[in-house]
């Protein structure tokens, strides 16, 4: 049984359709990314799955429980880290966890042991008595995550876990999440993000969301490889490449051939098939001298662009 099964989940706000018949499932132990620009319907989807919002239509089961009719059981099985900071800034790190743990029925020694374990895991044990207000943004986020997993949930929801953090803190949060997964292989994580690198780094599978629909869903590598134009190649030679040689390269699978200047050729290719490398070899074998060669790896940004026809950050 999958930790999350969503079946044609739909949410309307008046005439706006935030999520339009979204179906997907998350497998045990998987990290699943919902990738999309702001307003794509990611947060609404997470709110429905975490029982904070009732779907207009469709159903979803989280940890096997229906999100409408078995809210209590769903809540007991999940941990959430919201976009908003839901820890109290006036309390100490430990007090925040102590209060939250009680809301899951934890108490006494068991509670304090868990608090210690989780705080050590996120690297905040030394700061346990510090008032939350004085923590840096990254530390605060790590505290939120420690709180989300305090009761050892089956499923952890992370809504934009690194938005607003500096690159170093982001990296810290990513490593911490990786560490968390390593210790608890059955923990399924579902995260929303509009950062391609984050989805690429953390997720086993990614669904690209736009305007309330899932456009595609697969592992980050598979998604990239599925693009016929994902790999960008540029070859600069000492003399222009002749037509016959160009045709040989196109025969390898290159597309969109163009020469901005006579001695520089640019084309795209399906990623993962080594077309750029083989083209460069071919050029050298035919007696050209390569002055400069660039093969840019495809990114999830390209995938998003390929599916929506616009860049992800344009409206974010």
């Amino acid at each position, binding site marked *: 049984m999958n930790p999350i099964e969503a079946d044609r989940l739909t949410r309307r706000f008046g005439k706006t359709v935030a999520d339009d018949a979204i179906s997907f499932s998350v497998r045990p132990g998987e990290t699943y990314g919902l990738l999309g620009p702001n307003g794509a319907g990611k947060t609404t989807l997470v709110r429905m799955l975490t029982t904070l919002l009732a779907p207009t239509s469709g159903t979803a089961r989280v940890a096997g429980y229906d999100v409408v009719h078995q809210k209590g059981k769903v809540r007991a099985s999940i941990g959430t880290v*919201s976009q908003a900071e839901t820890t109290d800034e006036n309390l100490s790190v430990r007090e925040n966890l102590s*209060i939250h743990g*009680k*809301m899951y*029925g934890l108490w006494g020694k068991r509670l304090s042991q868990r608090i210690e374990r989780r705080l050590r895991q996120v690297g905040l044990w030394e700061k346990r008595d510090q008032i939350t207000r004085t923590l840096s943004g990254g530390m605060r986020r790590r505290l939120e995550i420690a709180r989300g997993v305090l009761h*050892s949930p089956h499923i952890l929801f992370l809504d934009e876990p690194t938005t607003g953090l500096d690159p170093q803190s982001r990296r810290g949060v990513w490593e911490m999440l990786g560490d968390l997964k390593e210790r608890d*292989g*059955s923990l399924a994580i579902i995260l929303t993000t509009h950062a391609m690198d984050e989805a690429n780094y953390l997720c086993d599978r990614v669904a690209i969301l736009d305007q309330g629909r899932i456009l595609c869903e697969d592992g980050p590598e598979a998604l990239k490889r599925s693009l016929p134009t994902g790999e960008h190649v540029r070859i600069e030679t000492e003399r222009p490449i002749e037509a016959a040689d160009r045709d040989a390269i196109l025969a390898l699978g290159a597309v969109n051939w163009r020469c901005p200047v006579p001695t520089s050729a640019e084309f795209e290719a399906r990623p993962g098939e080594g077309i750029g490398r083989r083209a460069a070899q071919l050029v050298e074998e035919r007696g050209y001298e390569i002055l400069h060669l660039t093969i840019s790896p495809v990114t999830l940004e390209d995938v998003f662009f390929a599916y929506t026809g616009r860049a992800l950050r344009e409206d974010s």
Partner: protein
Amino acid sequence: MGAASPSSALPRAAAGGERTLGVSRGPRLALLGILAICQRAYLTLWRQPVLIISTMLFPVIYLLVLGNSLNRQLSHIPLAVVDEAGNSLSVESRRAVLALEGGRDLVTLAFPADREEALRDLRRGRYRGVWILPHGLSANGPGPAFIGDNTDRPSYDALDAALTDVWSDVTGRRRPAADPAHLEAYPYLDYLTYLGPAVVCLAIFMGSMVAGGLQVIEDRMYGYHEGYLVTPVSTGAIVTGHMIAGALVAGLAGAFVLLAIMLFTPLPMTTPEALGGGLVTVFLTALAISALWFLLFARARKTSVLRGMFGIINVLIFFPSGALYPVESYPKWLRVLSDIDPLTYGITALRDLLLRGSPVSSCYSEWMFLLTFTLVCGVLTQVLFRREV
């Protein structure tokens, strides 16, 4: 959970036995949830000293300023006496008025030359009253004339009464057949002490606003609430938790002020029984008021709602309660408001206990009302409360 629990189908990690799922349900979880909310309210209060100071100091300052400014014995009322008669009776009258000034400082006297000047100054607010002793003043007439500034009713009444007495004394007409008996059922109380119980309730009111109403809206605004809503604790327990948390903070403020007035004002009753009954009353009143706040703001999302409504709520709850003036003299519509105002019952119970030394059992009916009020508000809140964000 049945044998076919879906959770058992989930693979478990090495530490999987620790899963919380299904471990805590029902009453234990509800209790822990309530405890958690109270713990947070309590800790938050102590981390924000401004809140404590304003919650606890406000009522005390209120007591000191209001108690000392309102309903004091009047003194130093400026009075002009115009003696046009110049006979022995007028001299005697003037002497008697001088005694009012020298004795209990009721008046500050002036003797302007003529009535035109005196009346002109009365209209300019220099005097509260002018007492004219006309030509040919005599016990059989003409008598003295009092022209008073009736915009200031208390001073007018005091001068009128005092000057009537003076004239009766001077003319020897004041000898009633027998003095009626006046007995006070309780030891002497000044207004400041009379206000004491009201100020305890004011502290509760302020405290529950800060810790109850305001806190709930702020939680919702800043997203802390979401942290509660995603947990398995039931809505009923969350509502109860907030109500009790608000009541604890408000009750703490009330108890502090109760102790303060027992120590520093000449309250007649400071027995352990009065203190115990007082503390119970304080807590029950706090519970009822914080339930009311929570009901009013069950759906509010912005503190501006509170800001806009605070004045109105303050007037609707504090003034009809009989805190400042006896309820019996209110018009009918105001009495209806007073009858459903939980503060009325808190103040009545506290006055019985602290001023009259009544036994605790005399407060049972008030306590019952406060509990019922809390329960009704709690149930309504739970219906209105939205678990969605």
